[in-house]
Every structure is written in C-alpha cells, then in structure tokens.
C-alpha cells in the first residue's frame, strides 16, 4: 500500500468539538490506538474554518487528512462548517465525518445532503465512544485510501 503523500507518515486529524470532555476522550483514544495520528482541536466552527484556511493563529496549520465534525457548535454551526468545506474546491476532498450526539432523521439527512462523507452517532458511554474512535481509525485511517497531499494542495 502506498503511503499517503506527505513526507512524514503521520496523519493529521482535525476534531471540531466544543465539549472538552469529548475532545479529551477522543485524544486519549487516538493516542492509545494510533500513535501516528496528530490530533488538532477546534472548539468552535469559526476556529475550524481558520484552521482549514490557515488564517489567524492557524497560519501554519497542516491540511488535515480527515475531519471529525460535531454539529452543534458555538459561533458557527457544524452544518455551516460542513457546507463551507464541501463548497470549497480545495477543501471538499477532505473526508469529513459528522460525529454528533443527535440522532434525528433531519440531522442525518441534511448532513448527507451537504455531502458529509459519513454520519456517526456519538455514544454517551465512554467505552462505546472509545470503540467508535477505534472503528473510525480502523476504517478511515487504515482501510480507506485518502487523497495524497501533494495533489490536494
């Protein structure tokens, strides 16, 4: 299998999540299961867009290989962030996974309409959350073929 285009082997994952507890759990799970993951956190929608557009304090931010996006976020909603990502020619190729505690049909449908790559429901229990992070890591960071960075600039 061909390594993902970057010179380093690590994967950059952007987590957009306003709940510090959930962010911490995700970070700990990734640290335990895949040491090559560099997790970056944006705690609201505006910060996520700054990171992706390399603006403000995120001027040196790497282009993420994968985005994990909560829907309910302060300042700028996750649905709006998703629409901006998928409406941007440069950013739309980045697989963007909605990870939300909402299970309403309307949220699931709008996410796919906005071309989220997949929708996962965030479980309330810690062990279920940990196992979901493992599933994401296994499928998206080991099984799936992601865009090579050299081409995606």
């Amino acid at each position: 299998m061909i390594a993902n285009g970057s010179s380093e082997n690590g994967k950059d994952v952007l987590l957009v999540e306003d709940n510090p507890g959930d962010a911490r759990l995700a970070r700990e799970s990734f640290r335990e299961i895949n040491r090559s993951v560099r997790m970056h956190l944006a705690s609201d929608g505006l910060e996520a867009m700054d990171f992706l557009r390399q603006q403000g304090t995120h001027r040196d931010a790497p282009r993420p290989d994968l985005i994990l996006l909560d829907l309910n976020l302060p300042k700028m909603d996750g649905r709006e962030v998703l629409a901006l990502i998928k409406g941007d020619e440069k950013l739309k190729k980045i697989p963007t996974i909605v990870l939300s505690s909402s299970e309403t049909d309307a949220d699931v449908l709008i996410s796919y309409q906005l071309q989220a790559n997949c929708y996962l429901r965030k479980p309330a229990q810690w062990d279920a959350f940990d196992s979901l992070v493992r599933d994401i890591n296994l499928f998206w960071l080991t099984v799936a073929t992601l865009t090579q960075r050299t081409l995606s600039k």
Partner: protein
Amino acid sequence: MTKEVLLVEDSPGDVRLTLEAFRDVGIDVHLHVAVDGVEAVAFLNQEGTYASAPRPDFILLDLNLPKMDGRQVLARIKNDESLKTIPTVILTTSDAAADVANSYQLQANCYLTKPVQLDEFEALVKSISDFWLRKVKLPRPVQ
C-alpha cells in the same frame, strides 16, 4: 432491517466474491448488481426493467465500467438532489492518485482500493459491511 446494496461491477469474479463475502457477515443485505454504468443509472432512476427497483441504502461503485464510466455514474449520483444522499463508496483496482483525488472531488463518500489477494478482498468487504452497514447512520429513505 434489510439493507439494499447496489454493487456496480463488471467483473463476474469480483461480483461473486462480494456476494459471498456479504453472505458471510451476518447482516441482512439484498445485494443488487449492475454490470455497467448505464444499467446502474437505469436502476437508480427506476427506468425500464428497473421500474420496481428499490432505492439503495448504499452503493459500491467500480470506476472502470463498460458503456458508462464509473466517474460519470458518480457525477450523476452526486448531482442529483434525490440520489446524492446515498453513500457511494468507490471500490476499484486503481490506486492512481488522480483517480482518488477525482473521486473525492466528485464527492464519493469513500475510496477503497480493491486488493488482489482473495483473503484481503474478503476482509475488505467485511470491514465495509461492518462500518457502513452497522456503525454508520445512513439517511432514512424518503420514499
């Protein structure tokens, strides 16, 4: 609940392998096969002999297909307001960077490279069904 899966694949060997692998994973799956791009589009639009075809919950799409290319099929799906919400995963032997980038650009939900080895292919189908049909929350079909 039974999941309707549309497999768009022209190689009979790969179709058979996929059928068998899905049968072994213990999920209730109706696997429908379209052997070229034109047939896939007819199935999705419920045209001709596919007038009573179900709306798929999930699509596995090869890129290199006779009659109509997989890239064209993907573009049609993702430009159709009703079909675009169906998760469409590319499953192809090509690992060319241009094919990967182009597929994500066309808003494929995921790109998977078909392994040559039989056991690896089975493992891949197993992880597809486990992740996409068990873990992922699929949109509820609006009929």
